[in-house]
Each structure stands twice: as C-alpha cells, then as structure tokens.
C-alpha cells in the first residue's frame, strides 16, 4: 500500500517536472506524449489507490474482520478520508505547489492555485471514487463495475451526441460546450458527483445499506449524464443573474443594416472590426450568409462577444425554413471610436436547405446571448523571444512558430486565468497593426479553480504575419518582427444579456459573399 502510494506520488512529481521542463524548452512531441501517458497513469493511480484504501475495510460483505471490532464507523470513514487527503491529495498539492514556485509565481498565489485544485479534485474525483469503491468488495469487482459503467456511459453519450449533437430543437446535446457558460454543466456534474458521493458514503459507512446505495448511485449516474442535456436558455439565464455589473449592457443594441451592402470576400487581411469564423460543422457543405449588423451602445474599450446565436428562418407560410446557430462574433470598440460599429455575422446554412429557400422572402429571428467585456489592462511584449510576467495574465513568452508564419504567444498563470484578451501584432515605429485575435474561451464561472491535470492555467494564441499561400499580405510582416511587439489587451466580464434581432423580410441570396 505504501509502495503504491509512493508510486502514485512519484507519477505526480514526474508529471509536474515534465510540465515544467516542457514549458521551459517548448513542448516536443515525445515529451507531450509522455506527459499525456503520465496524466492517464496519474488519474488511474489515484483511482486505484483510493479504491485499495477503501477495500482494506470493505463495506459490502459479511466476512470482514473490522465488522466485529470496536471501530466507530465515523472513525473508519475519517481514517479513509485522512488517507485520501494526506497520501493521495498531499502529493498532488505538493507537486502543484512545486510547479507554481518553480515557475516563479509568488508563494501565496501558488498555494491558492494548489488548494483550489485540491478542493476540486476532492469533490470531483476523490470522493466519488471513494463512494464507488465503498460499493464494491474488492479491486476486481471495482474494475469490472467501473468498466461496465464507463462503457454504458460512453455508449449513451455517443448515442445522445449523434442523435442530438447537431440538433437545434428543444433538447440539444451539451449546448453549453465550447462557450463561457460551460461551467454550468461542469458545476452541475460536480454537484451531482459530490452529493451522490456524500450520500453513498453515508449509506455505506453508517448504515451498510449496499443495495440502496448502489441503486442511488445508478440514479445519480443517470442524472449525471442528463446534465449533458442542460438547455442553453436556463444556463445563460443563470449566467445573466450572475453578471458582475448587471445592466451595463442595457444600452447595447443589435440592428440589421442592409445599407452595408453585400459582403465582399476579403483580399488580404480582414478588417479589424470583422472577425468571422465558423463553429465546426457549419462550413462543410454549408453556404455562409453574411448578415450586415450595426452594434450600438458600446462604450469605449469594450468588447461584445456573442456566446451563442440561435437563428430561426420562417417562410411566408409561417413554417420554419431553418433553425440553427450562427458563427462566432466579437465586436471591438477600441478607444473613442464611432457610436455604432458595423460588423458581419455569418450564418452557415446547409447547401440543400439554402438552395430550397434562397429566393424566398423569409422572416429571420436571431436570438443573441451576449457578454460585454471592458478593458482592464493593456500590455506589450516583444514579438520575438518575448518573456514577460504580466500582472493578472501570468508568465508569457513569444516566438515564431515552426512553420515560420505565426507568432506564438504562450501564457501560464498559477490559479485563476484572465477572462479574455485581444492580441495584435504592432510594428512599434510605424504603429502598423495586424488583425486582432480574441483569445478567450473564458469560463464565466463565479468561482476560480479547476480539476485539470495541474494547477497551472495555460493559454496560447497564434498571430499570423505571413500567408504561406500568398493570398494575403499583412501590414506587419516577417521583416518587421524585430521592431514589433504583441499588444495584449485584457478584458474582464461586465454583463451577460440577450438581444433578439428580427428581420421581417430577408432574401438569403442577397447576403452570400460576392
């Protein structure tokens, strides 16, 4: 047992050391694979170690020696918890702390990051594994039951993803995934796991009611899977209620602006106010409709991010012609700009559907779930071999990527990461800029902390300065990199709100790119 605990602790430290080296040296493919293996090994090691500890005094069964000893059930449970905290979480905490300190973060910040991850691991992994182990007699039984549950879960999730994944109906599969609201589902799953673990441990250690406990665990597992179907609207409504500065987005309006004319495919770089990208799955066999929009009510140095846009097109007969989601949309207002910002919002429509309805006069209704950010801080870092510690952002480095066409920005922070940032490449002497990238994927969670492989938060972005196909030419190119810098503008969340844009009559063919 002690050897096992030592082995799991060693994996943690090797992983932490590996991550430290990978950051320092630039993660090579071999090291990355090794680290991935170590991560899996660490997870399995933790799970097996906890199970082994619980199975030393198994709950199910009638032959265990401890049942006839003067052992208080509470003491037994506490001893198991103590083992988990000291022998399982202790090394994880220590390796997280080591990583934080080795990477030069202050002691307090490193401790906070390690504690935060430890709490997440306890609630989301260790206690549920303990509870599951308490339902089984030995490791063999746990492996068989665990594999069965994993297989059933995987099949159900795959089935739900294939049936509901592309659905725009009332029930969607994991609609918050890949948005800032993803924490709602994560938190629901964490809560279900923790609650189920507490109840199962209570039933087992204080009542030894294995059959009811197993039934409860099965129900909790179903509820856990159902959290993948949490609808978008209630999730975002919760997010709205948790807005840090509610009402600051009340002046923001979204309007259809046909005067902008038809979208012309950009030659060279796109406008700094126009960042269009498609969510995966929309471009394949899709026709992109570029809707001209006017965004008003943005204050200076604010960014508006569309977390989700639900598009509904209705024919003259009142029948739904298309329902789906629009592409990403970010609207920047840097400094004291115009009162209104003109943008294009792309909506991918399957080619078959498009061909059927492209000439029809349709009614479009787009429900935007929006987040308003305000500028919090602005930093600059050399474009080449930049190595800076930025307050609130962390330790950031820059380098030219392996293809030689992008500047790679890598940042690492101990604990809570920044919400979002816009980054652009600027030639310092001339002030010329390349297009801005929005590095976000922010989790709007009202708590900090994560259960990931370590306590470090890493993010990266690529800023192109050369189009290898030769189609685009960037204002700041490779020759100017030595005199250039990356400007990092850090934004914090202000408000979450929704806007509904109704276009009474629209003909799709008028809004495809020229």
């Amino acid at each position, binding site marked *: 047992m002690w050897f096992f605990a030592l082995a799991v602790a060693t994996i943690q430290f090797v992983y932490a050391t590996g991550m430290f080296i990978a950051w320092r040296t630039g993660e090579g493919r071999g090291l990355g694979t090794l680290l991935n293996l170590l991560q899996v090994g660490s997870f399995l090691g933790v799970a097996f170690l906890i199970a082994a500890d619980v199975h030393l005094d198994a709950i199910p069964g*009638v032959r265990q020696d401890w*049942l006839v000893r003067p052992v208080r059930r509470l003491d037994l449970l506490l001893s198991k918890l103590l083992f988990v905290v000291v022998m399982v979480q202790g090394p994880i905490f220590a390796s997280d702390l080591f990583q934080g300190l080795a990477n030069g973060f202050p002691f307090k910040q490193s401790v906070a990051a390690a504690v935060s991850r430890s709490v997440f691991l306890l609630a989301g992994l260790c206690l549920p594994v303990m509870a599951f182990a308490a339902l089984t007699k030995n490791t063999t039984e746990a492996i068989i039951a665990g594999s069965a549950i994993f297989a059933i879960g995987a099949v159900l999730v795959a089935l739900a993803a294939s049936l509901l994944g592309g659905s725009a109906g009332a029930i969607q599969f994991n609609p918050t995934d890949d948005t800032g609201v993803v924490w709602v589902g994560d938190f629901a799953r964490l809560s279900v796991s923790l609650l189920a673990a507490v109840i199962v441990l209570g039933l087992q250690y204080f009542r030894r009611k294995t059959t009811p406990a197993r039934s409860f665990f099965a129900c909790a597992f179903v509820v856990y899977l159902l959290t993948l179907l949490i609808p978008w609207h209630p999730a975002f409504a919760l997010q709205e209620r948790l807005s840090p500065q509610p009402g600051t987005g009340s002046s923001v309006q979204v309007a259809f602006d046909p005067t902008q004319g038809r979208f012309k495919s950009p030659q060279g770089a796109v406008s700094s106010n126009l960042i269009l990208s498609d969510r995966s799955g929309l471009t394949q066999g899709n026709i992109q409709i570029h809707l001209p929009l006017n965004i008003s009510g943005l204050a200076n140095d604010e960014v508006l991010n569309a977390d989700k846009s639900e598009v509904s097109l209705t024919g003259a007969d009142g029948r739904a012609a298309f329902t789906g989601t629009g592409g990403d949309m970010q609207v920047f207002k840097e400094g004291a700009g115009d009162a209104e910002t003109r943008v294009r919002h792309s909506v991918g429509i399957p080619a078959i559907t498009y061909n059927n309805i492209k000439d029809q006069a349709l009614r479009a209704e787009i429900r935007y779930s929006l987040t308003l950010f305000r500028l919090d801080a602005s930093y600059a870092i050399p474009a080449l071999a930049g190595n800076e510690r930025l307050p609130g952002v962390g330790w950031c480095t820059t380098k030219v990527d392996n293809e030689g066409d992008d500047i790679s920005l890598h940042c690492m922070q101990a604990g809570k990461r920044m919400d979002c940032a816009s980054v652009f490449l600027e030639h310092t002497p001339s002030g010329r800029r390349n297009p801005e990238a929005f590095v976000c994927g922010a989790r709007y969670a009202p708590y900090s902390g994560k259960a990931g492989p370590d306590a470090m938060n890493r993010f990266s972005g690529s800023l192109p300065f050369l189009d290898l196909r030769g189609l685009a030419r960037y204002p700041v190119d490779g020759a100017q990199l030595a005199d250039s810098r990356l400007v990092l503008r850090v934004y914090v969340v202000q408000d979450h709100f929704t806007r509904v844009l109704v276009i009474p009559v629209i003909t799709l063919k008028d809004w495809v790119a020229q």
Partner: protein
Amino acid sequence: MIKAENLWKRFGRFDALQGLSFSVPEGSAYALIGANGAGKTTTIKVLMNILSPSRGRVTVLGADSCRISPRELGQIGYVSENQDMPQRLTVEEFLDYLRPFYPQWDCNLESSILRQLRLPSDRKIGNLSHGMRMKMALACALPYRPKLLVLDEPFSGLDPLVRDEFMEGLLEQAGEMTILISSHELSEIDGVATHIAFLDQGRMLFEESMSELTGRFREVRVMLDGVASVPRQLPSGWLQMKACGSVLTFVETRYKEDGLGERVRAVVAGVCNVDAKPMTLRSIFTTLARAARDAGA
C-alpha cells in the same frame, strides 16, 4: 447476556431464520447446534450486527444488536471460520493493529496465548493454514478478556491436533466469560456446553441446559419374550422405535428414572427386561435431526 425475540431473517424469498427466540445466560457456554444451513451462522451474524434482522430483535450485552456500539464490541470476542483477516499483515502486525482498540488488552496474556497456540508471529496471515487462521482468530479474541466469546463453527476443517490445541487455548482462558458456540461438531461441544439450542431450518426446536438435555434422553432397549413388533400408537416422546428379533429399541426423550418399566409395559406386552442407557450429544442430535426430517417429510 444475549436475548433474541422472534428473530426473522429473509434473503430474497428464503427465510433463513423463522421466529427464533432464545436466551443466553451470563456465564454459560451456550451451544447452537444444527445441520448445515440450519441458520446458526445467520443468527450469529445478526447478533453481531453484521446482518440486520428482517423482523424481531436481539439484545447483546444489553444493547440492541442493530445499535451495537464499539463499547459492546470491545467486550465481545468473535472467532469464525468466515472471518477475513488482512492477508497482507503478519500475525504480529495484526495484533499490533488490534491492541489499541481494546483498552483492557493484556499483553502478557497475548504472549502466553501465542506460545500456547504456537502461532508464528512473523508469518503473514495470508500464508497461514486454515487451522492456523482459526487459532489466530482465537488469539485475537482472548487477550482483552471479552465478556462474551462468540465462536462460529470454530472446529470446522480443523485436524484433531489443532482442535485440541484450540480447545485447550479456549478452555484455559475461558474463566467467567460467556461463550456462544455454533457447531455441528457435537463431540467438541460435549463437555464444554452448559446450554444447548437446536436449530432446524431457521427454527429453534428446543433450548435447555446440557444437564437437563442429557438427563431426559435415554436409549432404551426392551427384551421381549416373543418376537418384537413396533406398536401402532407410540407415546409422545418415544422416537426411532425399531424391532429386531425379540428386542425393541427406541429413544426416550422424557426419561425419568422411576416408572420407565411401567410405562413400557403399558404399551408393549411380554416385556422381560428394560435397559436405559445415557446418550451422547451426537446421538441426541442425530435422533432429533432425523425426527425433524421425518416430521418435515
């Protein structure tokens, strides 16, 4: 010391215990006997709170078995063939582990028991033979001088030598403790038990003191002056009557020294001689088991 009232235990559709009631007096050596599957182990597991009863209740050392606390468990020694001790620990390590749980643990007694039972303290429990493990269980149950010692089929699978060692170890330390022993090894109980209860298919057929039991059972041999035949109507209490030549044999379950001859003569004609012999516990047990089986059939 132990009092069971209308105890039921159901496993699915099978009633392992069916309204069991019995009482174990303080200071007694109470034997639960019965064939395999009679419910002896289930009864013991219920009173140790390893299983919860479906109905009824048991009090052990004054506490409801369902709420038996470490205070009571600290005064109970438990030895069972169905006891999984930590296989990876050595004998010594396990005793080291147990000691702090029992404030009244007597280390000198522990050493003496280990010597007497000849247990290898440095050997892992997983490497002990079945007999050694039973002795180990006994060695773990005696050093804290429990008020109640529960032995569940302690002799099962033990060779005669180990049995003797086990029994010597047990009897030497028994002192004033109350012993509840379940077994179908009747020869081992004979001479140890002061009280006996007979279980059959989850029911208690009888419970009484050993002296009363052995006192009321006699194997009766009746010599007749002619060819013997089994009477159609037998008095209640006469079991297993057989006729062979001019000899009639049966088991008298309500034996009283005076008046046996008259009672026999009242039922059987041509009686020359009546001879009543005390029975061993084994014979009593098999007689009762057969009677119960025949009644069931």
